[in-house]
C-alpha cells in the first residue's frame, strides 16, 4: 500500500513545536527547583515523541539528533546521569536547535545541520559512547538466500500462551505463507476432558517447511512468543529427543494423571467444536493455506477481576498538557463547545417561537410577545457571540512562559541576577491579540532586564537585594486585558529623558512638563536613553515601535516610574480583535466607523476658536490645547455636505499621546461591529483598518485613526510641535 504521509506533517510539526515548548518550560523549571520525576518524564516524552514521529515520517536528521537527546534523557530518568545547569543549558540549546531544524523543514528550507552535529558530539561525550554506536538499527529483514530447502521447526507453546493474546494458529498460517509446510500436531499432553482448562494450550507442533526463506524470517514469526514457548529451528531435521523429553516433562509435571478410562477419549466431545479429527498424531497437509483446525480455544471468561488504575492522573500532568497549545489551530475545551451547543439550542427555540408568532394574527398581545421574543433573541445572540469569542481565548501563560527563558538567558549574559514572577497567567485573551502582543512585550521585558534592573553590585550599594525582580501581571478590567511589566530596578531617569528630548528637539528647554509627561516621551519616535548600546535592546527599534504596535491593536501603553524603586509598564488591550464598539460617522453619502476606544469627545466647532496655520492646517483651540483638524472628506477625496467648519461635527480622537479632530458631516449610531478583513481579498488601505457589514448588508470601512492622521500628513502631535509633513513647516511658537 502506497501512502502519502505528508498529510500528517502539519500535525507532526505542530505537536513537535508544542513538545519543544513543553521541554523548554520544564527545563527552565528544573533549573530553579530540584529535578522532579514528572518534569523529567515530560521532557523525555516530548523528545521521545519527536523522535518517533520524525523517524516515521522520514525526517532522518531530526530523528538521529533526537535519538541522542532521548538516550541521554533516558539515562537521566534512570538516575545514571545528572542534570546540572550545564546539562540543562545543553538541552535548552538542543531545543533551540531542534526548533530551527523543524522550522526549516516545515518551510521547505535547507536546514543547518552543523549545530545539531556539534550538539550531538556534546551529548555523545556525556554518554561516553563512540559516535558510531547510535546509528539507528536497521529493521530490514535478511534477504532470502539461496534455493529452497527444508526447515524443521518444533514449536511447543507454554500452556499460558493464549493469555498473551497470541494465537499459535496464526503463526502456523504465517509459516505456511513462507512456503510449503507439513504440520504435525502433538496432542500428547492433552489431559482428560474434565481436567481441561479452557484457557490453556495443550498442543505442540512439528512443522516441516520447504522454503527459500531465511532463519530470521521464521524467527520473526515467533518473535513475540519467544519467552512463551520452546522453539527450535533447524535444517537438520527434528530434534525429536528434546521434544519428547520436553513434552513428557510437561505432562508429568503439570498434568495430573486422570482416571485411566477417560484418558484420550475426547474425540467427538472436545470442548470447542471439532471439525478435524484429533488423535495423538494428526497430519495436516497444507498448500500455502491451512484449513482452520479445531485447536482454537474459545474461552468464555467468567471470572471478573477488579481493576485498579495504578497510575492515575496527577494534577501536574494535567497542567502540563493544558499548557500546550499551538499557533495555527486552537484546542477548545469540551465545556466551551458544550456551552455553544446549549446556546444554539436556545436560539432555535426562540426562533421557533418567533416563527409561530409570525403566523398568528397580529394584535397587541402578539406584538407584545413578539417584542419579548426579539429581546430573547438579542439575549441569545449576545450570549452566543460571547461564547464564540471564548473559543478564541487562550490563557496569557502562552506569552508569559516565553519570558522565563528570555530573562534567564539575557540576565546570564549581562551578569545580573533576576527573578521572574508571573501573576495572572490564567487570564484569557484572544489568540490573535496574543500573537501580536508578544513582540512588544519582548521589547518591554528586555528593556527592564537591560535598563531597569541594575547590576548586583549597584543594587547592593543602593541597599537592595542583589536579586532583581521582574513581575509580569495580567488581569481583566472591563472589556480590556491589562498586562503589567514591573521591575524593581533603578527607575526612569526623568532628567536624562528631558535632556535627550531637548537634544532631539522633541521639547523645548523652556517647556514645563510634569515628570509623568517627561516619562511618556520615551515612546516618541527616535528615542533611546541607553548609555551603551547593548546586545539586548537599544538597537534602533525604540519604544515608539512598541507603542505603535500596541496602538495598532487598539490598545494603549503607559509608564509609571519611581527613582530607585522601579518602573511599571502598563499595557491595555481589547480582549478581542474580532469585534469593536464603533461610532458611525457620515461624510456625504459615505458611512465610516471610528472605534469608540479612540474617541475622546465629539463637538460642534466654534469657528472663532479655529486658527489656520500657513494656509495649510486648521487647528482648534480646545480648552487651551491645539488640536489639528483632519477633514475626512478631504483626506478621502469625498464630496462633503459641510461647506464650513460650523456645519459639521468634530470627533476628537487620541493619536500617539496627542489629539486630533476628525471633521465629519454627521454622527450616526454607536454600535458593536464585527471586524472583517479588507486585505483578505484586497490590499491594505492607508487610514483604514478593516471593514464591517452594517445592518442593511452594506459594507462600511473602519477608520484607523493613527493611519488617517498620517495620510493627512500631520506629525508630532501632543509634543507641542505640530508639523505638516509635506512642507515640514515647524510651528514652534505653538
Amino acid at each position: 500500500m502506497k501512502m502519502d504521509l505528508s498529510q500528517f506533517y502539519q500535525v507532526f510539526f505542530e505537536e513537535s513545536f508544542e513538545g519543544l515548548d513543553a521541554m523548554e518550560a520544564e527545563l527552565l523549571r528544573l533549573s530553579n527547583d530540584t529535578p522532579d520525576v514528572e518534569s523529567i518524564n515530560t521532557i523525555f516524552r516530548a523528545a521521545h515523541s519527536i523522535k518517533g514521529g520524525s523517524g516515521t515520517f522520514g525526517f532522518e536528521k531530526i530523528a538521529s539528533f533526537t535519538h541522542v537527546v532521548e538516550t541521554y534523557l533516558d539515562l537521566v530518568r534512570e538516575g545514571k546521569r545528572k542534570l546540572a545547569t550545564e546539562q540543562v543549558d545543553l538541552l535548552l540549546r538542543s531545543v533551540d536547535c531542534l526548533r530551527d531544524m523543524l522550522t526549516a523543514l516545515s518551510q521547505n528550507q535547507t536546514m543547518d545541520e552543523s549545530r545539531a552535529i556539534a550538539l550531538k558530539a556534546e551529548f555523545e561525550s556525556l554518554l561516553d559512547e563512540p559516535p558510531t554506536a547510535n546509528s539507528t538499527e536497521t529493521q530490514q529483514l535478511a534477504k532470502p538466500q539461496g534455493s529452497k530447502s527444508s526447515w524443521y521447526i518444533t514449536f511447543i507453546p507454554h500452556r499460558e500462551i493464549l493469555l498473551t493474546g497470541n494465537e499459535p494458529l496464526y503463526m502456523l498460517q504465517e509459516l505456511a505463507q513462507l512456503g510449503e509446510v507439513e504440520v504435525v500436531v502433538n496432542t500428547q499432553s492433552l489431559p482428560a476432558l474434565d481436567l481441561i482448562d479452557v484457557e490453556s494450550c495443550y498442543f505442540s507442533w512439528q512443522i516441516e517447511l520447504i522454503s527459500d526463506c531465511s532463519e530470521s524470517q521464521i524467527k520473526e514469526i515467533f518473535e513475540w512468543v519467544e519467552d512463551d514457548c520452546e522453539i527450535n529451528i533447524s535444517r537438520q531435521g527434528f530434534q525429536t529427543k528434546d521434544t519428547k523429553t520436553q513434552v513428557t516433562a510437561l505432562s508429568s509435571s503439570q498434568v495430573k494423571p486422570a482416571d485411566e478410562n477417560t484418558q484420550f477419549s475426547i474425540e467427538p466431545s472436545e470442548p470447542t467444536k471439532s471439525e478435524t479429527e484429533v488423535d495423538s498424531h494428526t497430519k495436516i497437509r497444507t498448500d500455502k493455506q491451512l484449513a482452520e483446525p479445531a485447536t482454537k480455544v474459545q474461552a468464555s471468561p467468567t471470572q471478573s477481576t477488579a481493576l485498579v488504575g495504578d497510575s492515575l492522573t496527577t494534577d501536574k500532568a494535567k497542567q502540563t498538557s493544558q499548557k500546550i497549545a499551538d499557533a495555527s489551530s486552537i484546542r477548545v475545551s469540551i465545556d466551551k463547545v458544550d456551552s455553544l451547543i446549549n446556546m444554539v439550542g436556545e436560539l432555535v427555540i426562540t426562533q421557533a417561537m418567533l416563527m409561530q408568532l409570525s403566523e398568528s394574527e397580529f394584535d397587541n398581545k402578539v406584538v407584545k410577545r413578539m417584542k419579548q421574543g426579539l429581546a430573547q433573541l438579542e439575549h441569545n445572540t449576545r450570549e452566543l457571540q460571547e461564547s464564540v469569542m471564548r473559543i478564541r481565548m487562550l490563557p496569557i501563560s502562552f506569552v508569559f512562559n516565553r519570558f522565563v527563558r528570555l530573562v534567564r538567558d539575557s540576565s546570564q549574559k549581562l551578569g545580573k541576577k533576576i527573578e521572574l514572577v508571573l501573576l495572572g497567567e490564567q487570564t484569557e485573551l484572544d489568540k490573535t491579540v496574543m500573537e501580536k502582543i508578544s513582540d512588544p512585550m519582548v521589547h518591554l521585558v528586555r528593556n527592564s532586564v537591560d535598563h531597569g534592573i541594575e547590576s548586583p553590585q549597584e543594587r547592593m550599594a543602593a541597599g537592595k537585594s542583589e536579586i532583581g525582580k521582574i513581575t509580569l501581571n495580567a488581569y481583566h478590567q472591563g472589556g480590556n486585558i491589562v498586562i503589567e511589566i514591573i521591575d524593581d530596578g533603578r527607575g526612569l531617569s526623568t532628567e536624562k529623558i528631558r535632556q535627550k528630548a531637548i537634544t532631539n528637539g522633541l521639547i523645548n528647554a523652556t517647556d514645563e512638563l510634569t515628570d509623568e509627561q517627561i516619562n511618556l516621551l520615551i515612546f516618541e519616535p527616535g528615542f533611546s536613553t541607553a548609555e551603551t548600546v547593548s546586545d539586548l535592546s537599544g538597537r534602533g527599534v525604540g519604544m515608539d515601535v512598541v507603542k505603535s504596535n500596541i496602538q495598532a491593536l487598539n490598545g494603549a501603553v503607559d509608564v509609571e516610574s519611581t527613582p530607585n524603586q522601579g518602573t511599571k509598564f502598563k499595557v491595555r488591550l481589547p480582549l478581542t480583535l474580532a469585534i469593536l464598539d464603533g461610532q458611525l460617522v457620515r461624510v456625504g453619502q459615505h458611512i465610516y466607523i471610528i472605534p469608540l476606544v479612540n474617541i475622546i469627545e465629539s463637538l460642534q466647532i466654534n469657528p472663532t476658536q479655529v486658527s489656520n496655520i500657513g494656509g495649510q492646517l486648521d487647528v482648534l483651540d480646545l480648552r487651551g490645547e491645539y488640536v489639528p483638524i483632519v477633514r475626512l472628506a478631504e483626506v478621502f477625496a469625498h464630496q462633503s455636505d459641510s461647506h464650513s467648519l460650523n456645519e459639521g461635527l468634530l470627533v476628537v480622537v487620541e493619536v500617539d499621546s496627542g489629539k486630533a479632530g476628525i471633521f465629519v458631516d454627521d454622527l450616526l449610531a454607536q454600535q458593536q461591529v464585527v471586524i472583517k478583513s479588507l486585505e483578505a481579498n484586497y490590499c491594505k488601505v492607508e487610514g483604514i483598518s478593516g471593514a464591517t457589514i452594517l445592518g442593511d448588508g452594506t459594507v462600511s470601512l473602519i477608520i484607523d485613526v493613527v493611519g488617517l492622521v498620517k495620510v493627512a500628513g500631520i506629525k508630532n502631535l501632543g509634543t507641542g510641535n505640530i508639523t505638516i509633513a509635506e512642507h515640514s513647516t515647524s510651528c514652534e511658537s505653538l
Partner: protein
Amino acid sequence: MKKILAVDDSASMRQMVAFTLKKAGYDVQQAKDGVEALDMAQNSRFDLVLSDVNMPNMDGISLIRNLRALPDYKYTPLLMLTTESGLEKKSEGKAAGATGWIVKPFNPDQLIATIGKVLR
C-alpha cells in the same frame, strides 16, 4: 469490521496509525493516553489495542496490565509501539501481558502486516 483502539499521546502518530488502519479496513478509535484508553476499552469491546509506551497520565505498560486484567481482554491482542532504544521495555511489556510490539519508526505496510499477525 474489526475494532482497533490506537493509543498514543502524539496526535500525528495517532492519526497516521488510525488512517493507515482505516484504509486497511479496520474500525479505529483513538485515545491520547492510558486513562482515556482504559475508559474506552471498558465501555466498548475492541478486537485489538495498539498502544504507545511513553504517555502521560497512564503509560502503555500500565494500560496493558490493566487491560489484561479485564475479563473482556483476557485473550485480546495488545500491542505496544516501542522504539529501538526501548528493548527492555519489550520484556516489561510482555510481563504486563502484551501480545507483541511494533518497533518505531515503522511504515504503513509494516504496521498492517504486524496487526495481521494477531488479528484476522
